[in-house]
């Protein structure tokens, strides 16, 4: 069985407001999937549905073949969850907290203790009460409890919000390692740029609807977003042949030329530009970022 999470046609209504509508997707083993969307788009609701904390109004969720809300909750033994802004009892120490969760998951205390090192929680901090922890340390403790019992599915809600860049890199290294072991990792985020190169697939959620689902390359292909090319000429007033090839070149303030070009014409243009290397002194190619992609899909949905 390669599929670990199956979400089919779910909707969730609270009274009159619909938080999630008609969302379907499948997560497979060894896949890292990003759930992207702005605050309040329905990311957390989807994760709660996958955990069985709430029940879908319509549709069905299957996690490792079980309904998470009513089925055998033994499957939760193979599930790790890191809530958004995770919190623990302030009076207990990190070690006591992790031991408590390890007991619930039937994980040996010694195996649990090894996780401190893995998430990088300093040994001197482990026996201090959680009250004294910084946000980053609390997040590490949260990650440690999510990793208890080598989960097959990891659901991480905004795992990197509030972490400094070094911690973030650390965190993504860990995710890459888990992916290699066949763990399904679903992480939600609204900081899309940091997901670049970290995920196999992106599902974009807006207003409770999944508006895009695919690899980053797929999404780029669908979106047909232009690549931005800026050229610095070696002589300010030169007018190279390629500059009037039917494209909209703009002269920048610093004397450079800027244009936006669709992916299918990119290579040919670059070929033309670099054919006469003496004419140019600099060349910058900016591919559309995830944020551009996200903005594109949001706009597409509004006009639909």
């Amino acid at each position, binding site marked *: 069985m390669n599929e670990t999470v199956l979400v089919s046609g779910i909707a969730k209504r609270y009274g009159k407001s619909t938080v999630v509508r008609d969302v379907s997707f499948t997560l497979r083993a060894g896949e890292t999937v990003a759930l992207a969307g702005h605050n309040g788009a329905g990311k957390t609701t989807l994760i*709660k549905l996958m*955990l069985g904390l*709430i*029940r879908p109004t319509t549709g069905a969720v299957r996690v490792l073949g079980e309904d998470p809300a009513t089925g055998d*909750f033994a499957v939760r033994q193979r599930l790790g969850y890191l809530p958004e802004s995770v919190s623990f009892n302030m009076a*207990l120490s990190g070690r006591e907290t992790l031991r408590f969760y390890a007991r619930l998951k039937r994980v040996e205390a010694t195996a649990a203790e090894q996780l401190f090192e893995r998430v990088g929680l300093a040994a001197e901090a482990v026996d201090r009460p959680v009250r004294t922890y910084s946000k980053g340390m609390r997040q590490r403790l949260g990650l440690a*409890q999510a990793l208890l019992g080598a989960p097959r599915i990891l659901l991480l809600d905004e795992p990197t919000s509030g972490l400094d860049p070094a911690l973030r890199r650390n965190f993504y290294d860990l995710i890459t390692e888990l992916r290699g072991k066949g763990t399904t990792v679903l992480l939600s985020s609204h900081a899309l740029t940091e997901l670049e190169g970290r995920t196999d697939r992106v599902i974009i959620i807006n207003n409770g609807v999944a508006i895009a689902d695919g690899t980053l390359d797929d999404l780029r292909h669908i979106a047909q977003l232009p690549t931005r090319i800026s050229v610095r000429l070696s002589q300010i007033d030169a007018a190279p042949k390629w500059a009037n090839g039917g494209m909209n070149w703009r002269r920048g303030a610093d004397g450079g030329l800027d244009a936006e070009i669709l992916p299918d014409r990119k290579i040919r243009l670059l070929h033309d530009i670099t054919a006469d290397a003496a004419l140019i002194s600099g060349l910058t190619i900016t591919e559309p970022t995830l944020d551009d992609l996200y903005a594109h899909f949001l706009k597409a949905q509004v006009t639909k």
Partner: protein
Amino acid sequence: MRNVLTIAGKEIQEGTRNRWVLATTLLMAALALTLTFLGSAPTGTVGVNRLDVVIVSLSSLTIFLVPLIALLLSHDAIVGEMERGTMQLLLSYPIGRREIVLGKFLGHLAILAFATLFGYGVAAIALMATGSQIGAESWRAFASMIASSILLGAVFAAIGYLTSALASERSTAGGIAIGVWLFFVLIYDMALLGGLVAAQGQTIPAGVLNAFLLANPTDVYRLLNLGSGGASALSAMGGVAEYTGLSSPVLLAALGFWALAPLGFATVIFSRREL
């Protein structure tokens, strides 16, 4: 069962860490000692068995204090964890909601039992140390007073859980808990007394009085401890107890019902709650 014990253990651990256990034990011991020595001054040392006097005063103390402590401990148990976000994480673990409620309840009950046993035990030990002669009958009454105090604590802890499962905010649960305490401990008896006075000596059928008394767990507790033995004469509750004709097993069953019913409702409500 292992999950229940894990949760209960954590609750006790938290209780010792945030000094709840220490504070309640010290409070109960201090008040019990005060009542033991000040309260028995008027009776002197002759005639009445001193432990019986202590039972009467400690029972009255229990009726005020134990429900308050139980409600303070329990009203936060469910809604508080929901608000802090720790419940969400806990529910993602392989543990049923029933196990969570039961585990927390047992943990809180253990804290209450510890505080009552040691707090009141100190009073009895102090009495022995001053050389009082205490009969076996009084010891039995004292032991059953402690046991029923813990049971009364269980009743109000269960009511606290029910408010905690119902309330959508911690502050609401706190408000309801205080209201529950005021109602059962102060208002109910005053209203009952007022009703009896208003009846102007007309005989109220025993059945009606029974129903009124059983409807309030603190009255059940009072009847249980002050209705018989040496304490009944001292507290003047013997007359009421005789009139109602409620036996100890019936009273115990009533207290048991008062503990289990709210806890059962709390579990059902919590199981249906979405968060």
